[in-house]
């Protein structure tokens, strides 16, 4: 058998798993592995400027491709810097592998230099973790880690490797396992046919149905099945923040996003529904508002790969545990085999009602000819300049909600944001990951002047690797989302929600070797966008000044039902 050092085994295992990129930052405990990486050229290492960015870049890569993102960090501070990225990936069920260095095994527990109990610190934010106790186990651990990260409900897996186990002078027999042996882990591969049949019967009887789909449909490659099912039944579809793009955003049957900042028509339709088909969505609090008042007349059919997500927040009438794609496909074939038709008459009435809601509100906002630009206008201009085809990553805040509302995503994996954890600082590194995955694609990062400063140092990484990301900084000179809550719930007392002393972002971008464009007037917006996107091989930082007083609407009224919304600063349902 071939004899390899622990470090070489790590690198070989990555190669066997088909890893193209590893995002990382070196340090003492991983130097043996860095040396092994240096001697090969199959896996490219991407040097970020902060470990948090490594995790988000790997995450962006994973969200765009469906393949696991891979990260390497050193022990201690390197490892703890990766925690936010692990938590971000964990909340959104993103497949990721993080390799963290650890101090020598005989020093563990002695408070050695740069020692952190990474297994302990990361425990609540990983799907699973491994500590390498014997270098011989490295191949098996890697095989298991990749398998666990990418199957069932995906998630991040951590591998903690003590430095001595990667020493170059000690070699061990190496063989990469072909199969995984895990008696305690067997994700469901099929939904229960009886349950699926019951669900189909319910769908056919429905008079006011809504399909409510989430990130699971994107992750589970079930967009096509979902779209077919919705079209076949002529049912309205709404997506969660995580599910946007799973159903074409420009389609007539699409109601827009639902939830806290969902559209009027989506939230009204949910509240009035008699049957809700929740697919790969977890009924979280940003969607449901008060669960006791949630969709009072609806039977809930809930498809999820994770049994623990079912009936966690809202009890399901027909729970179906299984891969969402397989379950939807089976629903489709059941519909076909019996030539079943939904209740067309009732659906016609239902659509009339929905169209009435659409007309009443839609997504409107007020513009002011002489006043400042509106953030919504920026997203609309971005949509136009990119013909709706860009990968859009985002940070967290008002700009994120405007992007979700106003950019119509037609394909899954096109919209990349931190939904579950809401991590400011996610957008730029995630965009880097997407750009690495698709070098020729148009990648835009919609951000705010608050969020962008949380990982601004990555402008340097972008220069090093020539990543032509377009940064759309919707600059409202405020932590806008915080400020909105303070306007609405704290009598307008703007405690610590200013962004004062902002840098000159144009100069900043230039000093990092990029192009900066400042836009202050609406009439300049379109031209500036076109100019930026014409620079195909340059990173362009667009610093766009918008109305600091704008709010995101609709907005759920706290503790109310789905239909209880603020529609503007003065109108509510």
């Amino acid at each position, binding site marked *: 058998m071939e004899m390899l050092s622990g470090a070489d085994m790590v690198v070989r295992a990555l190669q066997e798993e088909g890893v193209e990129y590893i995002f990382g930052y070196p340090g003492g405990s991983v130097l043996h592995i860095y040396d092994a990486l240096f001697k090969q050229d199959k896996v490219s290492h991407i040097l970020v400027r902060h470990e948090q960015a490594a995790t988000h870049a790997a995450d962006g890569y994973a969200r765009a491709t469906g393949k696991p993102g891979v990260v390497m960090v050193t022990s201690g501070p390197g490892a703890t810097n990766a925690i936010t990225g692990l938590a971000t990936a964990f909340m959104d069920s993103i497949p990721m592998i993080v390799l963290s260095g650890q101090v020598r095994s005989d020093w563990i527990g002695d408070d050695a230099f740069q020692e952190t109990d990474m*297994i*302990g610190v990361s*425990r*609540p934010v990983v*799907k*699973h*973790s491994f*500590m390498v*106790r014997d270098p011989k186990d490295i191949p098996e651990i890697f095989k298991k880690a990749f398998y*666990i990260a990418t199957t069932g409900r995906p998630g991040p897996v951590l591998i903690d490797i003590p430095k001595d186990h990667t020493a170059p002078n000690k070699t061990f027999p190496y063989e990469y396992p072909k199969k995984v042996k*895990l*008696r*305690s*882990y067997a994700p469901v591969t099929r939904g229960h046919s009886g349950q699926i049949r019951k669900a189909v019967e319910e769908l056919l009887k429905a008079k006011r149905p809504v399909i409510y789909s989430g990130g699971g449909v994107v992750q589970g490659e079930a967009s096509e099945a979902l779209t077919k099912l919705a079209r076949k039944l002529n049912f309205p579809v709404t997506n969660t923040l995580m599910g946007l793009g799973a159903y074409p955003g420009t389609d007539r049957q699409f109601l827009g996003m639902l939830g806290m900042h969902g559209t009027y028509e989506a939230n009204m339709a949910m509240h009035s529904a008699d049957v809700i088909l929740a697919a790969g969505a977890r009924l979280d609090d940003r969607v449901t508002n008060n669960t006791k008042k949630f969709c009072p007349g609806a039977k809930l059919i809930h498809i999820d790969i*994770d*049994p*623990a997500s079912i*009936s*966690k927040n809202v009890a399901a009438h027909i729970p179906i545990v299984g891969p969402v794609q397989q379950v939807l496909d089976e629903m489709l074939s059941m519909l076909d085999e019996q030539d079943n038709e939904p209740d067309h008459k009732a659906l016609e009435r239902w659509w009339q009602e929905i169209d009435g809601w659409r007309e009443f509100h839609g997504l409107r906002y007020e513009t002011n000819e002489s006043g400042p630009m509106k953030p919504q206008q920026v997203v609309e201009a971005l949509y136009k300049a990119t013909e709706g085809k860009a990968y859009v990553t985002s940070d967290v805040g008002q700009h994120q909600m405007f992007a979700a509302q106003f950019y119509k995503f037609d394909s899954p994996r096109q919209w990349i944001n931190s939904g579950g954890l809401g991590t400011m600082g996610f957008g730029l590194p995630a965009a880097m990951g997407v750009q690495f995955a698709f070098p020729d694609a148009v990648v835009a990062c919609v951000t705010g002047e608050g969020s962008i400063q949380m990982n601004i140092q990555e402008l340097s990484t972008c220069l090093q690797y020539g990543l032509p990301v377009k940064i759309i900084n919707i600059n409202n000179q405020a932590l806008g989302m915080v400020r909105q809550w303070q306007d609405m719930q704290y009598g307008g007392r703007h405690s610590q929600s200013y962004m004062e002393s902002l840098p000159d972002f144009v100069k900043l971008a230039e000093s990092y070797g990029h192009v900066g464009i400042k836009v202050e007037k609406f009439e300049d917006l379109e031209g500036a966008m076109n100019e930026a996107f014409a620079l195909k091989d340059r990173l362009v930082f667009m610093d766009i000044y918008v109305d600091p007083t704008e709010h995101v609407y609709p907005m759920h009224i706290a503790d109310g039902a789905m239909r209880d919304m603020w529609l503007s600063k003065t109108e509510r349902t």
Partner: protein
Amino acid sequence: MRRIISILMENEPGALSRVVALFSQRGYNIETLTVAPTEDPTLSRLTMTTTGDEYKIEQITKHLNKLIEVVKLVDLTEGAHIEREIMLMKIKATGAQRAEVKRTVDIFRGQIVDVTATVYTVQLTGTTDKLEAFINAIGETQVLEVVRSGVSGIARGEKVLSL
């Protein structure tokens, strides 16, 4: 409602801490916990008692099942089962009380496993209720020290929890 959950899990470092952490992370409480290897040394058997309504217990079992190291799990309280707890206890035993304590130990079918001039060390096995009844019968003022193992349990009849 009180539940006894019995878990077969990989006998690996870190597995137990994941189970325990899950409880604090998700705000569930553990009343008792016992764990030891089984006849198959690669597996541990863990028994815990917890309380919660049906919804909570369902969540607990689902989340436990999600842990990679958990191989199998059963809620023993769902069916007929046997539960036992072992208790070791030091009891003041002087003068007239010596005979009284001895009588109570006999009634509860306990054993005196160590004796000094002033103290009996008693071993008692049974359900949690029985152990508590014994402590009450002895009277708290007499009790010097109590060590309880936590509940162990097994299903009645032919049902077995194994691979």
